[in-house]
């Protein structure tokens, strides 16, 4: 027997299963990063005056600003890819999803450059509390980016064409859900950028 409300909305809740599922999942993600952010606040308050600012000044702000722009662009292209599917334009979907993947890979490359330049200068997670939380937060965020890339690549590969031709509505929903996750990952970075690089 088919599970109801996978593609059509349940009338009294106005939601599909996957839409509600991703929101509940994102709520748990908020608690995960919320826990780490509160650890940051806790450690910063306990740290000697100026300690966090001193170590924070070692980070590369221009590169991180560029990365912020790259990630915001990827958030825009992922919406465009979903909108293209809504308008039944699969070619444009391929284009925008491809751009999203490109932007996310650029983000990871820039992150890699940042990390290696830190390691080259002898800055490791064990060097200071600030660097410890910096590497943990950005590392975990990077893993989330990687997870997103894996899922979106799956939908971008030929298997996506097949899904689109057999179940177009379901496929559009899947892209929307992946997009919601992607916005969340983007939003986490919007919080990480000021507290790590600018404060």
């Amino acid at each position, binding site marked *: 027997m088919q599970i109801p409300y996978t593609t059509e909305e349940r009338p009294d809740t106005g939601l599909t299963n996957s839409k509600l599922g991703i929101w509940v999942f994102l709520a748990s993600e908020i608690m*995960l990063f919320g826990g*780490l952010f509160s650890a940051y606040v806790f450690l910063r308050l306990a740290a000697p005056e100026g300690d966090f600012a001193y170590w924070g000044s070692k980070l590369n702000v221009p590169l991180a600003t560029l990365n912020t722009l790259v990630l915001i662009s990827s958030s825009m292209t992922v919406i465009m890819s979903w909108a293209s599917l809504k308008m039944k334009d699969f070619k444009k979907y391929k284009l925008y999803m491809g751009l999203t993947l490109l932007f996310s890979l650029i983000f990871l490359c820039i992150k890699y450059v940042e990390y290696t330049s830190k390691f080259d200068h002898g800055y490791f997670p064990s060097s200071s509390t600030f660097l410890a939380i910096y590497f943990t937060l950005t590392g975990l965020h990077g893993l989330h980016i990687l997870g997103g890339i894996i899922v979106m690549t799956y939908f971008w590969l030929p298997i996506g064409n097949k899904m689109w031709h057999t179940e177009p509505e379901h496929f559009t929903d899947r892209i929307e859900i992946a997009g919601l996750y992607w916005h969340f990952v983007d939003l986490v970075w919007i919080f990480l950028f000021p507290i790590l690089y600018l404060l």
Partner: protein
Amino acid sequence: MSQDSHHEENFIQKYIFSVDHKIIGLQYGITSLLFLLFGFMLMMVMRWQLAYPETVVPIVGSLLGETGILLPEIYNSLGAMHGTIMIFLGIVPLAVGAFGNYFVPLQIGAPDMAFPKLNAASYWSYFVGGVIMISSFFMPEGAARSGWTSYPPLSIFESGQTIWLISMIFLITSSLLGSMNIIVTIVQLRAPGLSWFRLPFFVWAQFVTSFLLVLAFPPLEAAAVLQLMDRVASTSFFLPSGLVYAGNTVDVSGGGSPLLWQHLFWFLAHPEVYVLILPAMGIVGEVIANNTRKPLWGYRSMIYATVFLGFMSFIVWAHHMFLTGMGQAMSAFFQTTTMIISIPSVVILTSFFLSLWGGSIRFNTPMLFALAFLPMFGIGGLTGLPLGIGAADIHLHDTYYVIGHFHYVVAPGTIFALFAGIYYWFPKMTGKKLSEGLGKLHFWPSLIFMNGIFMPMFIQGLAGVSRRMYDGGQLYAHAQDVLQWNEFMSISAFCLGLAQIPFILNVFITIFSGDKVDRNPWGSTTIEWSAPSPPLPHANFEGPVKVYRDPYEYSVPGAEKDFTPQTEK
């Protein structure tokens, strides 16, 4: 996603990598019962050491080293693993993974969970986490030995902790996937006519429990990641500057705080207490309504109390930390919230007691377990109040009193409720009813020996005997007057082990030679009983389910039978 019921499946698809919520529920149930038994065995070894210190442990002595005597470091490992296994691998998977998975879709008239594949992923993540946890016993470093709470700095330096943390990340992932699924299933897949206030109390309990799991577990995951960094990447999230360990100043950058771990840990672990107790209350509600043959008293106020309990459980965590020196203002706040959170628990328990009033009670095995739950949980809850008051906690903190308190909540409390659930729903899962005679032979000794184990702990704790001591407090003058209880408690524990034999026999005898019963042997009103026993694979019910009634329409005046199923017009 879903499959048709006539779709052919081979053995592995059907029973191993199944996506059917009933099979996954059974997988969860069997695995977690085995873990419960294993965790209990670890405790029996520890109880031998406490009763007969430094003598050769019988039967398993050869596993413990050449002498056969339990060594202090292994004692610590067993203690840490007992707590971890019982909570994260035993009770939560049994209460939420097994009962939630199997009966939530059935009680709301759904064909399956909302995300069957995620459901299977949840079980397998749990299984892998469990295997990693158990395998740590055989690693060169041995199993974790810093207690189930894993307080730093000890946990950063003690061996075995890395494996513990990796295993916990799997278990947390499993809980998240499972509880998300339950939330979506309850919101989306309720049968037509099944409004929120027609849901059985069990479903409400699972709903609130799932929210606790979804929102409270991630901070522990965050904490586990930080602790893993401390151990693997030599960071110092939890290590203060100038820390001295084993006579040497530790060479780390410092600047961290051990208290940070305690905050993050208890932010999970206090809601976790309600994760342990709410599904149990849900099961007790079902069994009591069914066997008193009348509706649950105060059904709506119980639901409001459950939801309120869920909210409050997020702001009481620091009552575990009164002795950390976090300050008067914090203590006053958390004392107050702790006193407030006892109110909804009392509302629920009182409703259960009042539900008994005027009922024509059937004393069958599930009902006996459910009835025993009430006073046992009552003792556990009431003995918690002194611990929630900072002044009293100074004396009682980290004594056997605490152990007695939370074991009364979880062991004769939750575990009895889970047994009630097993006896109550066994006919639905297998089509056969467990034997009443063996059931009573299981119940009465269990009740007596549970109290034999945990009641003396209050006496020892009030006398000031600390927990987690290898010798049970032999070296302390203040402990001398109460040490004789150790032997009594240990013998009770061994007898409790023996008392589980009738249960195990009962399950096997019933499966292989029990008599078939019809689909509603208890005369119950809720929806799961209108499905065949066992329910159809991937569909559960023979046709579409429609709901016309409230959950507990027992003994309605003027009705023909003393129960009217929810699906009956």
